[in-house]
Every structure is written in structure tokens, then in C-alpha cells.
């Protein structure tokens, strides 16, 4: 393994800043701005006020005993990031970056989005703060997350479908970088997860740390002890870093990330970077685990979940993985959808398909650990955006009536699961 040792923003060997020179001064400006802001009471106060009165923080925790029956009887507690304004954890990071955009005197934001939640959050913050907003989204994702495309447009953002490469999140990131190089003097790139060139991985994590800070205290106050394991889905890894970070020093708390296992790691159609499939390399500005071939070409990922369908992962996760501090497992599309169904039907909560991967992880780990275990699961988002995909998956639509072919192309099997399915 090649391990560059110079440069900024390393988590062990991982991270760095692999970007065109044209962007370096913008990254330096961003780094200076956020360093000052993070110790400026005025900035922190403004962000805290928005979190309280706009996002709806602190988000609550919810114990889910009926769902827990499917987790080997272990106690399961959800951190409800799905209750945030705009429907996912993504707003935590976006509000922080949008305020920084204003501080840098920039007037335009761009973003990439997979599931659309980051795009919606960015469009929302842009509307709130009066910034122009352009969101890049792979063509495949505009189809499977059509509802979020409409939401972004209603919020006043321009959504640009990206038609090259895999036409998913990875290609949306490329396009956002191209835009940024050309417009960097007045544009900030609101990167949506804990990857990219320094300072993004650290900055985005710091805006999401609040998830774990709140959750840890809530576990102590409301449940009476720390969890045995904290589980979160991992696309780029922002909701996972957000909830993990405050627990890293709690050596007895297992940190478990669940990746998009797609049709199964053995099939090659998956987004599992930590299952012996990916190797360290550079993608999108960071040295980290990348699904790549023998010649360093990026291999396309696959997941039923647009937000997990990404061939790379945040560098801090790469570090936690190698250090053995966090564990990462793939969850297949089938397992995730089963967890989606179960949470909906046992607790009346529709999770995002991304978050359903973390729930499926809880079902597995709970059965492993048994009834004494206490699991904290980050419910990173709600499933409204996924209703169409889930309905297709479980065969709940009358195809004659639901004649909306654009929204369904990516849903995999349309077979109903028989008696279990009563959504």
C-alpha cells in the first residue's frame, strides 16, 4: 500500500488534498474561514439558533421495542435525524457551510446529491440565506429520487442532471468540481459528506458531531447507560462520523458502519468499500478506500439506495477501519428493504432506504449479541423520498395507474414478498 506522508488533513495515511492548483487557494480560504468561525461565539451562536429554531434540534431518541423483537430481543434506540427539517441529517452540515459561504462573501452555492437529501438541504439553506443554488445529480438518481428533484426546484434551485459515467453520485461530484473550478471566486461548493479534499472531511464531520454529542447525553439521561454499539449507514460517511465521533473514546462502545451491499458483495454489484473489495487510492480529492480496478480506474458501485451508491468513502472511516476502532459490514438491498418494511410496520416510522441499512445491521448485531445488548441506531433520514421505490420493490403499485416510468427505473425486483408484505 502506498502511504503518502506529507500534506494537510491526514487521518493516519488517509485524506490529503488531491486537487487542481486552481482550487487550492479556495480551500485555504475555506480552511481559514472555518477555523476562525468555529471559535467565534457569534458564528456558533448563529448556527445554534438555526439548529434550534429552524432544524428542530436537539432531535429526540426513540426506543423501538416492537422492532427490537426482530433484533434478537436487544434493546434498540433510534437517534431521530429523520425529524430534522428537510428530512435528514444533511441539514446540519449545510447550515454550517451556508453560513461560511456568507462569511466568505460568496453569493452562490453548488452541491452534488445522490439521494437528493443533500441537494434539498442545500437548496433550503440557499433559499433561507438568499444564495443562488445549482445542484448536480446523476441522471439515474434524478429518476429514482424524482420527488426530491421537484422539491429542489420548488425551493428555487437549478437541478442539473449528469449524463456521463455511471450517472450517479460519483459523476455528480465530478461535475460539481468542474463548476467550482470555473466559478470559485463567487461560488462555494457545499460538499455533502465527509470526503473530498481537506478541510472538507474534518469540517463536515464537525458540523455533524452534534448528532453524537446529543445522542450520548440522551442515552445517559434517558436510558441510563451508554450503548454497546452505535450503528449507522455509510455512504460517504457523514451521518456515521457524526454519531461515531463523540463515542470514539468510549472503548466499550462498538462503532458499526453499514455499507450498501447491493446484490451481494460476491456479485460485484455493490457499494461495499470495506469488504476486501476496495483498495486505498485517490478519488475526489482524498486518499481513501476506493472501488477501483487493477489500473486505478474507478469501478461503478451499485445500491438500491442512491445515497450509499458511491465507490469511495470518507478518509476518517478508512483510518478507523484500519485502526480497528470501527467495523464495517455490507447490507444487501434485500436485507435493507426487509428492515425498511419491518420498522414501518412495527413502529410506524418509514426510514430512508439509506437508514434502513443501519436497521438491518441492528437486526444482525442484535441477534449476535442477544437480549442484554443495547443498540443505538442513527436514523439518518425519513423515507418519504423512497415511497415510490419501496412501493415498486414490494409490488404495491397498480402499474396501470402509477404510470410514471421515470421514477421507477432503478427499483430492482418488483416481486411481492408474499404474506409478509402489507405496507
Amino acid at each position, binding site marked *: 500500500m502506498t502511504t503518502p506522508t506529507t500534506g494537510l488533513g491526514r487521518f493516519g495515511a488517509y485524506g490529503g488534498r*488531491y486537487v487542481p*492548483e486552481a482550487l487550492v487557494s479556495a480551500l485555504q480560504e475555506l480552511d481559514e474561514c472555518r477555523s476562525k468561525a468555529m471559535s467565534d461565539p457569534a458564528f456558533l451562536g448563529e448556527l445554534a439558533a438555526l439548529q434550534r429554531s429552524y432544524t428542530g434540534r436537539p432531535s429526540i431518541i426513540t426506543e423501538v421495542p416492537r422492532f427490537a423483537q426482530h433484533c434478537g430481543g436487544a434493546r434498540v434506540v433510534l437517534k431521530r435525524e429523520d425529524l430534522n427539517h428537510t428530512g435528514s441529517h444533511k441539514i446540519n452540515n449545510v447550515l454550517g457551510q451556508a453560513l461560511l459561504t456568507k462569511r466568505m462573501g460568496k453569493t452562490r452555492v453548488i452541491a452534488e446529491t445522490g439521494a437528493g437529501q443533500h441537494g434539498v438541504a442545500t437548496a433550503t439553506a440557499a433559499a433561507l440565506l438568499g444564495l443562488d443554488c445549482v445542484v448536480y445529480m446523476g441522471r439515474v438518481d434524478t429518476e429514482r429520487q424524482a420527488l426530491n428533484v421537484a422539491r429542489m426546484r420548488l425551493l428555487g434551485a437549478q437541478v442539473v442532471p449528469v449524463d456521463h459515467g455511471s450517472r450517479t453520485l460519483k459523476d455528480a461530484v465530478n461535475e460539481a468540481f468542474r463548476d467550482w*473550478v470555473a466559478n470559485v471566486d463567487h461560488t462555494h461548493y457545499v460538499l455533502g459528506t465527509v470526503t473530498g479534499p481537506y478541510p472538507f472531511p474534518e469540517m463536515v464531520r464537525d458540523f455533524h458531531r452534534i448528532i453524537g454529542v446529543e445522542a450520548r447525553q440522551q442515552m445517559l439521561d434517558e436510558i441510563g447507560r451508554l450503548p454497546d454499539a452505535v450503528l449507522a449507514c455509510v455512504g460517504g460517511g457523514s451521518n456515521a462520523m457524526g454519531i461515531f465521533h463523540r463515542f470514539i473514546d468510549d472503548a466499550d462502545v462498538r462503532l458499526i458502519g453499514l455499507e450498501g451491499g447491493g446484490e451481494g458483495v460476491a456479485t460485484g454489484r455493490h457499494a461495499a468499500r470495506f469488504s476486501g473489495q476496495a483498495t486505498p487510492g485517490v478519488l475526489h480529492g482524498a486518499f481513501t478506500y476506493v472501488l477501483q480496478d487493477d489500473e486505478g*480506474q474507478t469501478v461503478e458501485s451499485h445500491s438500491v439506495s442512491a445515497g450509499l451508491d458511491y465507490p469511495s468513502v470518507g478518509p476518517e472511516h478508512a483510518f478507523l477501519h484500519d485502526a480497528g476502532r470501527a467495523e464495517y459490514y455490507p447490507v444487501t438491498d434485500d436485507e435493507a428493504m426487509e428492515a425498511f418494511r419491518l420498522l414501518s410496520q412495527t413502529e410506524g416510522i418509514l426510514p430512508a432506504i439509506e437508514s434502513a441499512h443501519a436497521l438491518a445491521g441492528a437486526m444482525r448485531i442484535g441477534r449476535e449479541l442477544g437480549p442484554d445488548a443495547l443498540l443505538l441506531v442513527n436514523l439518518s433520514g425519513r423515507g418519504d423520498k423512497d415511497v415510490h421505490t419501496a412501493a415498486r420493490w414490494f409490488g404495491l403499485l397498480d402499474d396501470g395507474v402509477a404510470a410514471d416510468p421515470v421514477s421507477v427505473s432503478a427499483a430492482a425486483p418488483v416481486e411481492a414478498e408474499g404474506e409478509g408484505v402489507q405496507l
Partner: protein
Amino acid sequence: MSESVASPPSAKTRLTQVLAEAKAQDRAALVGYLPVGYPDVDISIEAMVAMVEAGADIVEIGLPYTDPLMDGPVIQAAVTGALAGGVHVADVFRAARAVADAGAAAVVMTYWNPVLRYGVDRFAADLRAAGASGLVTPDLVPDEAAEWIAASDAHGLDRIFLVAPSSTPERLISTTAAGRGFVYAASLMGVTGARDSVGSQAQALVERTRAVTDLPICVGLGVSTPGQAHEVAGFADGVIVGSALVRCLVDATDIQDGLSQLRSLTRELAQGVRR
């Protein structure tokens, strides 16, 4: 500045010689970019040799990459086609050999990950063995390049880093100090692709860069016509043309037509770089 970065005279590359010859003729050098593998490996190499015969001094051989985030639509289409056609990293060495044998200097333009994956030192060794002079690295700045700096020193290769209109004075100094062969001045803030006019920022950037280094400075991004080449030759040591040349192959109705378009554009550009 040059004292601090100059390699021993014995390590002078073909690239350095070619740039010095152009300077002695009081003209700018012509640098033509084509990706290896488009439309297929053999034709791409034939096209590179055709460029040399038509007057290109230096050929920038693109190594196709799945995520070319500094490239506009024309080059992206060509490299995607090359990858679909099954181009391999090793093809870049074949292309370099052909360009060097045809008498021009060969430099490889590559995003960093394929080199990292191949093995940085092994890549440098194979590149040197193929007769190439060095690398242009659009997503590798000197700050992250310790391993490449060591390998290029060990194998006597040039390392061509980019400077941009947004580069601060401090970065112009540190980037040019780390580089060798020439400095690639990005004429504008943006990605590759033909533009109607060469950015007004180009000349100012060249002047700022000249003030801190003795390395030759070649200007790229957006240069597409002989007139633009002539304009840039008025203030730069080399003129880099990419998308306009690639387009000859992308737009052609057949291969022979594409190669002859490429030859005639290269010939006109070679006239253009004469002051």
C-alpha cells in the same frame, strides 16, 4: 530560482532540449495533447506521430481516467471512448516510445490514481525506459507529491505542475520551485475545452510566474486556433492545445479524414507559434 531546482546536466530531458531549441529559434514550442486509446490504441499513436510530423514539438499523451475532473466535454468523451475500447496503462509507454522515436518530447498527462495504483516508482521507471520526459499532473500539487518527487529524481524525469490565475504569490514560488521541465500555466479558471478567446488572465499569470522562476512557461486551457497560438506565443515559451486537436478525431467522418484534419490543424498551429 532555477539553481535550487536544476537537475545535473546529464539528467536533461528531451523536453528541456526541445524547449531550448524553440527558444533559440525565437519561437514558442507547440505542445499537442491527445489521449492514448482514442479511437483505438494504434490509431491514437499514429495520430500522435502525425502531429509530430506536422510540427508539434512536444506531445502530451493523456492517460485515460474514469473521473477526469479537470476536463471538458470533448476530452471527456474521448477518454470515455478510449476506456470503453479497452485502453491500458501500459499503452501510454508504447505511445511515449513512438513519440520519442518520431523526434518529439513525450510527456504524459495523468490524474494521480492510476500512477498510485501502478506503483509510483515503477511507473517512473517504465516511463523513463519508454523515452518519455516526464508527467503533467492536473490533480497532484507539489504539497502531496513527495513520492513522485522522489521517483522523478531517481529516474531523471521532469515533473510539470500547474499554476492557475488563483495561485497566490507564495504558491507560485513553491510550485515552480518543485517543478522541472516547464511550468503549466492554466490560462483561465476552468476545465479543458476550446474558448473563443484566450483568457486575459493568461498573460498576467505568465508575467507573475516569470518573476519567480527561470523555468519555461507553457500556456494551456482554451487555446484552439492558430491566431490564439500566435497571441500566446507572444508571451509564453510554449502553447498547449488539447480539445481542438482531439475534436479533429471526435468529429471526423472516418479515420483518414480525422488524421488529415489533425495534420492540417497542427501545421497551422506550428505556424502560429512562430512570432
